[in-house]
Each structure stands twice: as structure tokens, then as C-alpha cells.
């Protein structure tokens, strides 16, 4: 039996450019243009040459989306425990410590209150750099609390996902983050607050199979991989020939799974318009 939760999803562009594993992160995998980091930051990390959307780290994403100075982080102190004393080639606790040092984040999701285009909302943003954006107990709990805060403030929740799936090192408890976040969305719905789900590259496995797919509106960035099972595992398991755009946002759009593909530069005003729509409900 093959894994359905493929946390090894890295970057489909990287996969295409074979043997290009050591490509510099600021070199465009599509047109091979190279940029200084401040250049890319200026362009919201979209390649000015070809439009390729580079990954965006969580804090930078918040800066891109939220009105300056409005983001107030919550639950920053939450950390993953190690309920299984998990040890593969290394200890889970070591992996966590290393990820925190490398990313400056406590786990793969940041959440808090914000305003986007002067509309209040709750914001929950994932960071793929923290253990592949995998969802363990901390990510689940932070997302669930973001739902609670949105409900109590009567504002929409905007989630930005980037995830390889569930966090294997927490075993069955990582799987339980699927129903946990689903329940949190249900409570958000009971409070009549909207979930605007922004799926960025990659949104896969457990995150796609839970809260990310339950958005009242589902938006994706161009070229993002949105798949329950990543292309590598599908290929290995089924030996099927995969379509060129397998699992990409564009394919998902064609099959009716996303409401809109919005280029990064238009994302902020687009979300602002949606917030205006949903805030009028109250």
C-alpha cells in the first residue's frame, strides 16, 4: 500500500527541471531568470519575466495581504509536543527544534487578527518551510482557535494554505487534525462567519482533505498544486500516465473545485472585495 499522505511534495517545478535540485531559490524554475531577494520581495515573489509564483513565507504573506500594522498574532507560544516519542532517522523533537531555528516559527501556521483593505478579518497562514507545512496538533489547534476568534469577533476567517499533508511524526493524532479542523469550520459556520480559503502551492493531502476545501469561497494562485495525492505517488501507485497539468490549480478549476484563480498581485483587492461581501451579512 502506498502512502496517501505525501509529505515529500516539494516543488513541482523542481521536479520538472530534472537534476536541478540545487537550483538557487531565487532562480526562476520556469524561465531561469535570477533575482536578488529584495527584487523578488518587490514583485510579491512573482517572476517579472514569466509570471512564475515563487513560494511565499508566512510572515511575508501576511505583509502582502494585511493592511500595514494591523496583524496581531495570537497563540505564538504554542509548540508541538511529541506524544509518540517519535524517532525515525532522527528524533521528532530534534526536527522541531531545527525547524524553529531555520524558520523562526513555532510551527507551520501563524494566526491572528488583521485587516485587509480596511476590512477586519482573522488570518491563518501556513508556512511550507516549517516541516513541509505539515499539519500536526499545533497547526490544528491554532487553526481551530482562529475559527473561534473569527466567530466571537463576527468576522470572516481568511486561510492561506501551503502544506504537504499531515505530520506523520504525530501518528494518528495528526490524522485527527482533519476532523478537528472540520469541526472548527462547522462551528465557524454555525456562527455564520465565512471561511475564505486561499490555496497556494502546494495544498495537498490532509489539509486539502479538511478545512482548506470547506471555504465558502475557494481561491487559488496560478500553478499551485492542489491534490490529495501528489503526482509522484499517483504515478508510482497506478502507473497511469498523468496529464501535464495534473493536480494544478488550472486543472482543479476546470473540474469545478476552485472558484477563482487569482494572480498574487490581485489577491489582496480580491480578498478585500470578498470580505466586503461577507461583512455585510451581519
Amino acid at each position, binding site marked *: 500500500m502506498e502512502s496517501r499522505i505525501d509529505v515529500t511534495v516539494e516543488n513541482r517545478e523542481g521536479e520538472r527541471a530534472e537534476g536541478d535540485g540545487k537550483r538557487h531559490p531565487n532562480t526562476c524554475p520556469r524561465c531561469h531568470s535570477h533575482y536578488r531577494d529584495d527584487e523578488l520581495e518587490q514583485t510579491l515573489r512573482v517572476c517579472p519575466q514569466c509570471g512564475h509564483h515563487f513560494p511565499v513565507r508566512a510572515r511575508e504573506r501576511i505583509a502582502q495581504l494585511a493592511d500595514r500594522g494591523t496583524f496581531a498574532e495570537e497563540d505564538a507560544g504554542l509548540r508541538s509536543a511529541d506524544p509518540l516519542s517519535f524517532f525515525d532517522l532522527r528524533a521528532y523533537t530534534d526536527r522541531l527544534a531545527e525547524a524553529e531555528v531555520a524558520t523562526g516559527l513555532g510551527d507551520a501556521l501563524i494566526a491572528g487578527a488583521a485587516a485587509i483593505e480596511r476590512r477586519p478579518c482573522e488570518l491563518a497562514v501556513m508556512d511550507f518551510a516549517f516541516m513541509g507545512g505539515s499539519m500536526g496538533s499545533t497547526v490544528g489547534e491554532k487553526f481551530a482557535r482562529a475559527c473561534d476568534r473569527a466567530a466571537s469577533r463576527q468576522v470572516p476567517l481568511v486561510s492561506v494554505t501551503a502544506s504537504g499533508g499531515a505530520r506523520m511524526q504525530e501518528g494518528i493524532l495528526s490524522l485527527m487534525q482533519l476532523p478537528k479542523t472540520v469541526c472548527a469550520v462547522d462551528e465557524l459556520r454555525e456562527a455564520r462567519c465565512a471561511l475564505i480559503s486561499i490555496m497556494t502551492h502546494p495544498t495537498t493531502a490532509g489539509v486539502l482533505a479538511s478545512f482548506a476545501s*470547506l471555504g465558502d469561497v475557494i481561491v487559488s494562485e496560478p500553478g499551485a498544486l492542489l*491534490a490529495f495525492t501528489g503526482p509522484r505517488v499517483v504515478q508510482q501507485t497506478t502507473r497511469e500516465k498523468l496529464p501535464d497539468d495534473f493536480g494544478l490549480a488550472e486543472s482543479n478549476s476546470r473540474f469545478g473545485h476552485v472558484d477563482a484563480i487569482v494572480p498574487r498581485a490581485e489577491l489582496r483587492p480580491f480578498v478585500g472585495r470578498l470580505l466586503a461581501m461577507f461583512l455585510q451579512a451581519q
Partner: protein
Amino acid sequence: MSESPSSQAEELKLRERLAKLRDLPLLRGVGVSGEMSRLKRQLDRMGSEPSADDVWHSVELARHQDRPYTLDYVERICEDFVELHGDRALADDPAIVAGLARFDGRTVVLVGHQKGRDIRERTHRNFGMTYPEGYRKAMRVMELADRHRFPFVTLVDTPGAYPGVTAEQHGQGGWIARCQLTMVRLAVPSVTCVIGEGGSGGAVAIAIADRVLMQENAIYSVISPEGCAAILWRDAGEAKKAAAAFKPDAAHCLELGVVDGIVPEPAGGAPADHDEAARLLAESLRAALAEVEPLDPEERRRQRRRRFRAMGVYLE
């Protein structure tokens, strides 16, 4: 309590485990009565912490080719069963069966994964690996259960949702999410039992019940041992090592608060005696339903949500 030296040692071990459990912020099932005492009874019954070999034995028994499947139980525990077919949109997914059942003198709606016994049926059933169409069928009968106030029972036994191109194109992830949401929202009482492999998203899609049970030798896991080994050990051959590490066996799932109770299997495991396995399963399902049926539907839904909201261990 009259105590022999060995039972004293046992009790000490149990106390330690319970103490450890209490330390963990497992904020499970607030309002679910008899939590700790039931847990104690169950752990008691199971004896000591499972070893790596015990865990692997469970993996093997959970996947055993003679293990009873959903329809084997249905014919043994239901007085009548009318299978319902189709998702009303695209197909009837044979990897999942759904129907109206007479159980314990009343009508229930039952959904379960279905593997195949021989090679032909295995292929037909796609080894119990569900397409989005299967989850839509499940959702349809969930709504039927709610409309008619029929209790809802699911039996989980799947390696996972099917990882194929068409399944992806039809929205595998989204339907697993929506299926969970539909089940969470049910007004009627629900109970789930993992009767074999509880494989990741494909399993959890139909496992959001008021009470979640697991057979003694079933497994419930976020990934298959082979998949985990391939990713973390970069060697699928290390499956046994992986299983020991991520602990998919019933005892650990109970300790972690993921399941509410363990359904005993006959000596030698369920494959050895289908009739007795069915009798024991029926008994547990009956008891679990009896626990949640008296609740007010809104309160039941609230508790169900609280149960799953409390899943996880983290540090604050």
C-alpha cells in the same frame, strides 16, 4: 482488591500509564461519562504496553485475507439489509457499501468500506479504496439517516482513498472534507468501528461519530507503515520499524484518546471466527449507541464536535 504480586505489578504499570495520560493535555470528551474508569477497565483488560512485535502483529491481523469485511458482519449482525447504490451523479463506488439495516430491533443506516475476498472481487472493490463517488454515496445516506432519525453506523476498513488520476480530478480531497463535515453535523446518534485497516483520509472520511471503536487487532493510522518507512527511512522495507514508531494499534489509539473503546476479537483474532467476531462487534455497537441515544440531538452534536476538537497534544 485482593492482590497477588503479579497483579500488583500490573496495577502499578497501569497507574503509571494513567498518570502519564492525565499529564497530557488530552482534553477529550468532556461530558462523556465514565471516561477514565472505562479507559482503566480497557487498559486493564489489555495488560501491558504493546511491543513492536505486538504492533506488527496487529498490522498483519488487520490486513489478514480471512478477516471479516463489512458485508460479512452485515449478514451476521443485521436482521435485514437493503443495500442502496449510487451517488446520484456519476457512479456507484463498490469500495463502499451503504444501506438500510435492521439492527438490534430497529432500523439504522450503515456504511462501510468493502474489500474483496477473491482476486476478482478485490479488483471490483478496488481493494476498499474509495473514489469521491463513494463518499458522495455515504453522504447521501447520511442525509437519509438524518431525515428519518435512523442511527448511523460505519465500519472502517480501507488502505486509504484511491490515489488515481480520475479520483483526483473528481475532487478526492474535497469530498473527504465534505464527508467529514456531513457526518459531524448529523442530528442522529452515530458509531464507528475500525474493523481492519483505518487508512488515513479514506478512513477518517466516514469516522466522525459520537463513539469511535476499534477492534482489538485493527489499525488506525495517518499513513501505511510501508509509506511511512519509504518517506522517513527512505526504505519501504522498514515498515515494521515505522509501525512501532507511529503506533497504529488499538491500545495506543485508546491511550491517545482517538478511540473510545476496543472491541474484543475471538481468540486467534477475527479471521479465526467470523461469527464470534460479529457477535462481539454487535455487542459493542449496541452498547455505544445506547450511550449516546438518550442525548438531545443538539447536545449530542455539540459533544461530538467537542470530542474531535479536543484531539491532539501540544504545549502552551
